[in-house]
């Protein structure tokens, strides 16, 4: 879907981000040092770069300063101080996320930026169902399908985190917000409706004792 650079000197973390981004369908490029990262960004055309601040060779801030094109940047770092966040944002970064981070949060932020910068990513085509997250519009075989707000939110969460399972709790959080007091079963009822309405019976798989996953291969 998008071509994303992962700059992170910790190999395991780099690999972890890579695995998750690959799972949701992004193409990735991994770098481990500052100099390597700068070279990669200036020589390629990435849709987004995830920059670690503490990298050997050159730190993430310096890399950002020297980028010659307008690649969107998210700083990923263990540094939590406010000044560092401000430095990051004042350098023109699109977002800032601190370690340890929740992978789903990172995915959501990536999606956010991609939605802003790449118009085409707002439209997902799964089976014969077309979902436009920008206009919040769903079509099956070219015909509009009416979804309630909650149903659409659920579907959107599944689409953004496609190929990753989402727990029922997580789905409630994403679709209803933290303060929703409803039963986990509510999720099941809504999922049943989405499956029927959008013709995604097979694609939205039930993960045993956990939640749901939208399975989708390009």
């Amino acid at each position: 879907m998008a071509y994303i650079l992962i700059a992170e000197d910790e190999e395991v973390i780099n690999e972890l981000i890579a695995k998750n981004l690959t799972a949701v369908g992004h193409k990735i490029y991994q770098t481990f040092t500052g100099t390597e990262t700068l070279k990669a960004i200036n020589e390629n055309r990435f849709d987004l770069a995830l920059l670690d601040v503490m990298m050997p060779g050159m730190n993430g801030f310096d890399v950002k300063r020297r980028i010659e094109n307008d690649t969107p940047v998210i700083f990923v770092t263990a540094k939590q101080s406010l000044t560092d966040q401000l430095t990051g944002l004042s350098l023109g970064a699109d977002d800032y996320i601190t370690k340890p981070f929740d992978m789903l949060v990172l995915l959501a932020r990536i999606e956010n930026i991609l939605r802003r910068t790449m118009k085409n990513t707002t439209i997902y085509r799964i089976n014969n169902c077309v979902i436009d997250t920008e206009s919040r519009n769903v079509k099956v075989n070219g015909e509009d399908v009416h979804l309630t707000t909650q149903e659409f939110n659920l579907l959107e969460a599944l689409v953004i985190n496609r190929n990753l399972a989402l727990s029922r709790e997580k789905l409630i959080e994403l679709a209803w917000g933290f303060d929703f007091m409803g039963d986990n079963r509510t999720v099941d009822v809504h999922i049943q409706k989405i499956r029927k309405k959008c013709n995604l019976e097979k694609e939205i798989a039930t993960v045993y004792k956990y939640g749901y996953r939208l399975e989708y291969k390009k």
Partner: protein
Amino acid sequence: MKLNYRQKLYFYILVIFLIFFNGGIFSVAAIQNSKNIKAQQENLLIQNNIVLQQIISDVEVVYSSRPQSIPLIIKQHGARQKANGILIQVETDSQEYIYSSFDSQISFVGSDPTKINYKIDTVNGEKTFLAFSKLPQPFDNYNVITGFSMQAVFDDWRDTIRVVVALSVIFSSIISVVLYISLNQLTKPLMAISRAASKFGEGNYSVRIREMSKDELGDTARNFNLMAERITNQMDNLESMANDKQRLIDDISHEMRTPLTAIRGYVHYLQTAKLTEEEYYNTLNIIDRQADRMQKLSEGVLSFTRLRNENADRTTVVNLADLLNDIAKAYSIKAQRDNIYLSVKCPSYLEIKGDRLLFESLIGNLVDNALNACADTAIKRVSVTAHSRADKTVVQIEDTGIGMSKETLENIHKPFFRADKSRSRRRGGAGLGAALCKEIADMYNIDIKYTSRLGSGTTVSLIFTT
């Protein structure tokens, strides 16, 4: 009123000095004056005698022939003496008033008739020396009172007093000014010390005293500076120790965070992603390695802190050759795996004193580092040698590895410092090896010296002082 030390000192010295100074000149003047008066008195007594003798001789002449003309003679004498400035009054024992050149009658009766009695009194507003004498027999019913003016002496005295007071005022003011200035000058270092001490007390630890005289105050100032220097050093030490500790804690939490993030992230990945069996086991392996890394980290930190709190055992004798051979044996598998030639050369008589396990850990760590440095180089050789020189035993661990940069050498003893993060982590280090070595070496006063060049290898010398 609150006076500071300098003001008190000034005030006391000035008061005491002025009392003694003025008292001194006044008493000198007074003594001089009383001497003058006494001399004058003696002089006047002699004059009095002369006057009396003249009267007596004239009286004697007329006494037998014309006693009635005695008063006349006395009057003549009185008139003549008055011209000389000497006043005379003559009366008889029966208070019969014969003659007086005084403006008013003087009543002065001597207590002792056998002597000449005298006193100083004010007559007509003038200080006058009065002498009372009886004429000798047979004229002893005549009492003669003579009066000599002493006003000049007293005027002199008054003048003297005036001069003395004027001088005293002038000198006192000069003295008070001079004293003020010199005290100011003298107490300047004291004030500087006081100011510095109060600034120091307020927390300005960089304050030092610059004014220094070559006396006790200067010594005090120097001692103050010395004390300030010591305190600052001590505080710097404490601060750097606290910083070291804080850094260690920060570093530990940072070091823990990465494997933790990894473990959590991969577990989550296992939960959510649809994986093939191979991917599944690969992910489990990653989690296992990260857990292992955390365990090594916790062990390292534990031995690090334990070392810091332990007392050194300095009595146990350890045979160096045995120790080095044991270490070589322990690392031989690793050396063989990476095709590294590991050799030990040590005379059998060399001995060191201390805890064998700690020495094993120290030298073992260094050998391990040397083996790691040789892992990817063309020439792979690690040699451990020992020799003794004077009272020193030296163990050298030499490798033909990748070497270290200047920056690495400077930071090598810092916990969690890594020359190349990804490489050393891949080899499973927690980043505490060299720091642990330094800790053990410090415990036994062992000198660790690293000499290294990038690309040509490293030599570590352990110098044991016995």
